[in-house]
């Protein structure tokens, strides 16, 4: 555990990717395989879910720290992180920590952490006291982070892959592929991960997803539009579909197996020939077109789907790439060739489906947008919202299907955001980097003479602006409701968002997607802010585009 805590510190203390990769590589080279396996799991976001109820954690931590509950809460409010608050509050029992020998990460996780889940509260308490009294500093903090299911550290999967590749001598793409899908961290698994043997046993495993960079430069800088394959950027769930050995696997980008959740799509996919892997987007679909993302959300967290939901929100796969054809990995072939393969596979699917079923096919191709000039492209982009799309995808026609993000191959060119001027009305203290500062804001627009809250936003201000708003909040608090402060409605901000929908859950009757602060309108006073009617008009305009 001490070694893993030291790795955590090293990653935490460095801002450069080189130093982080060095620290990771050194850890993987020296840690026992079972520890390294767990480290890979945690560093790539496969953390255990919360193991102990948060209210119990608070109570027991306050008890061991010998402070009243209210003082625990005051401390938590200042720190902004439960795991860290506990680590700081419990005095270090130097005598006991000095006696304890270091226990490996794997033993901590397998023998002491994961079993907590099934223990009775009294037994959990005893175990926690033992751990808190034994562990010190970062090790205690990391333990708490695993306990609360909130372990995170500032490395990308790419860095972990790079470090593993460096330590093992196995190619990064191979490591990345082996890290996809389901696996159980163990010493044996880690040995396989870094082994130079080429045979790959797990045939359900997805390929790493290839991602796009946002286009910030003018499209003209990309050369002739003819060198690009242009499609809509769909606003759904990215998914990889695998048909191998007569079985269908549907993976999300978060590497979650989605089997069973979208039966209407799976049924169609089962008709694909063996040895086919497609990349595409799952969308809620009605009348041969996508429904808004909020409709799809109703399907997302359901492991089983009832008949009503199936007919209310039918789901459809829009396929846009083919990674494996007739059992052959074709990712290195150019986009235009892979598109041909995709169209070929889809034709086969249409034929087989027609033989067997009279219902509409739930798999279609993402249409190609043919244009003569970048002006045309730009125009199509501005209409994208009418297609329930977020913008356009520009894929270089000769691009291979890579791993992760690679500049210059795929670009996403989103529609310009909508924006309104709104007034800050509530503020709440933030967490992590923003702990102890009022950084979570609620904004309101005018309805006649009152301000109606209509969006929350957390990001978009500079650190200096955050401090300034924080001071404003503290100096202009009208009321406190728990952690939330009502402030004098004086500050006006321009909020940008991606789309508007009607909502029964919000007081304003509207919900916006991806709201963020575009800028602080210091030039405006509260009465200059927009009205709810303005926002409703935007919603109508958005609909009329269709």
């Amino acid at each position, binding site marked *: 555990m001490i070694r893993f805590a030291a790795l955590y510190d090293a990653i*935490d*203390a*460095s*801002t450069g990717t080189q130093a982080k990769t060095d620290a990771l590589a050194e850890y993987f080279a020296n840690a026992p395989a079972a520890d390294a396996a767990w480290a890979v799991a945690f560093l790539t976001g496969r953390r255990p879910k919360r193991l102990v109820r948060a209210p119990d954690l608070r109570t027991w931590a306050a008890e061991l*720290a010998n*402070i*009243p509950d*209210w*003082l625990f809460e*005051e*401390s938590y409010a*200042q*720190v*902004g*992180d439960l795991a*860290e*608050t506990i680590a*700081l*509050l419990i*005095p270090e029992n130097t005598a006991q920590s000095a006696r304890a020998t270091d226990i490996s990460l794997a033993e901590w996780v397998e023998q002491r952490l994961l079993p907590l889940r099934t223990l009775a509260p009294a037994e959990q308490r005893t175990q926690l006291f033992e751990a808190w009294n034994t562990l010190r500093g970062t090790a205690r903090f990391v333990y708490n982070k695993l306990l609360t299911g909130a372990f995170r550290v500032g490395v990308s999967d790419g860095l972990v892959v790079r470090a593993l590749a460096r330590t093992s001598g196995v190619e990064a793409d191979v490591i990345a592929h082996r890290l996809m899908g389901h696996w159980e961290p163990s010493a044996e698994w880690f040995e396989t991960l870094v082994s130079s043997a080429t045979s790959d046993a797990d045939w359900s495993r997805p390929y790493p997803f290839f991602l796009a960079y946002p286009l910030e430069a003018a499209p003209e800088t990309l050369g002739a539009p003819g060198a690009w394959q242009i499609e809509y950027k769909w606003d759904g769930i990215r998914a990889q579909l695998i048909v191998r050995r007569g079985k269908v696997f549907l993976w999300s980008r978060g590497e979650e197996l989605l089997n069973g959740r979208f039966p209407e799509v799976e049924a169609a996919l089962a008709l694909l020939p063996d040895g086919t892997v497609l990349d595409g987007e799952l969308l809620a679909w009605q009348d041969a077109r996508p429904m808004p993302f909020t409709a799809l959300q109703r399907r997302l967290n359901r492991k089983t789907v009832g008949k009503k939901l199936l007919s209310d929100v039918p789901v459809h796969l829009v396929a846009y790439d083919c990674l494996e054809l007739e059992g052959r990995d074709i990712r290195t072939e150019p986009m235009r060739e892979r598109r041909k393969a995709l169209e070929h596979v889809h034709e086969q699917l249409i034929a087989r489906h027609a033989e067997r079923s009279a219902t509409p096919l739930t798999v279609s191709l993402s249409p190609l947008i043919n244009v003569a000039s970048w002006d045309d492209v730009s125009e199509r982009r501005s209409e994208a919202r009418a297609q329930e799309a977020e913008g356009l995808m520009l894929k270089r026609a000769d691009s291979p299907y890579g791993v992760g993000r690679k500049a210059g191959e795929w670009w996403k060119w989103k529609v310009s955001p909508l924006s309104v001027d709104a007034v800050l009305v509530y503020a709440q203290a933030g*967490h*992590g*980097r*923003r*702990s*102890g*500062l009022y950084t979570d804001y609620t904004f309101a627009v005018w309805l006649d003479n009152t301000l109606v809250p209509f969006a929350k936003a957390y990001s978009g201000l500079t*650190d200096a602006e955050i*401090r*300034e708003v*924080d*001071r404003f909040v*503290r*100096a202009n*608090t009208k009321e406190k409701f728990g952690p939330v402060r009502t402030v004098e409605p004086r500050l006006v901000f321009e909020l940008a968002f991606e789309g508007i929908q009607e909502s029964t859950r919000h007081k304003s009757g509207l919900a916006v997607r991806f709201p963020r602060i575009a800028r602080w309108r210091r030039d405006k006073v509260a009465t200059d802010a927009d009205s709810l009617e303005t926002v409703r008009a935007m919603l109508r305009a958005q609909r009329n585009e269709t």
Partner: protein
Amino acid sequence: MLLRLTDRGLWCEAADIYIDPWAPVDRAVVTHAHADHLRWGHRHYLVSEAGLGVSRHRLGAQADRVSAVAYGETTTINGVRISLHPAGHILGSAQIRVEYKGEVWVVSGDYKTDADTTCAPWEPVRCHTFITESTFGLPIYRWPAQQQVFDEINHWWRENANAGRASLLYGYALGKAQRLLSGLDPSIGPILTHGAVETMTSIYRDAGVAMPPTTYATVDQRDPAWSRAMVVAPPSVDGSTWVRRFGKHAAAFASGWMQVRGARRRRGVDRGFTLSDHVDWPQLLSAISATGAERVWVTHGFTGPVVRWLQEHGYEASAIATRFEGERDDAAVDEAESTESETGGATS
């Protein structure tokens, strides 16, 4: 009440003196030379003898208005006995003891009870009413042992030196910087200082405080040995053109606030070392207990929680709203934390 809070500061009516006043008065008794306690424009200042040098320097043209008494020496005004006692915060820092007709009040100023070779150690002074700061008045603030922090700093410096990059260590120019200097291991490399730090350090040397050899870092003297150097500077220089002269470097910030990761990350330096010249939670509680006071007034910091804790433990406690700021990152930044101190008094 022997002392009262007025819009100019803490006032002792019987002697007509103010303690650390923030608006001009005739007679000010000043705990220490940080800017939120020692302000310009009073007609007469009384400070500790140990603090005479730094106070006169800070007051510049008004330096001749300052007089000093030794720690423990009593001055009597209108029957009010006034004496200054070590507060352990920085060189010359004092608690102010005021006694009138058998009633004793003590104003802590800023203080710590930790080890520090650069100033006289805090002494408990028995009193009926104790007015204490609460900059770090939450149990999450527990300082690691000073030597452990110095070891970490020297280790960090050595690693940087071996990697050929200078180490920039930020701390308040008066007090924190000298405490940091006192803990550095000069065998690792040269120790350079920012002008503001160098000036204060020479006053410390004049007062007989042992300091390692330092060199004022001017651009004219740029030297290849700087790649192994430790540079002690105020935090305001971070990101300024002043640091460019050192080329490749790592930066760290030494403050009690560095105890919490969020504050560390917000600061945007490579490292944060937890080192404070204020009492942490355990020190605060044991200091209050050692004074024997029954009434405690709590100022700048986490006044709300400290007052509530004291009340639950049988003290007659209340918060007072002063304009003291406690530990800031420096004069130019961290309005957030200093605002915390100010509103802490108002809301509790």
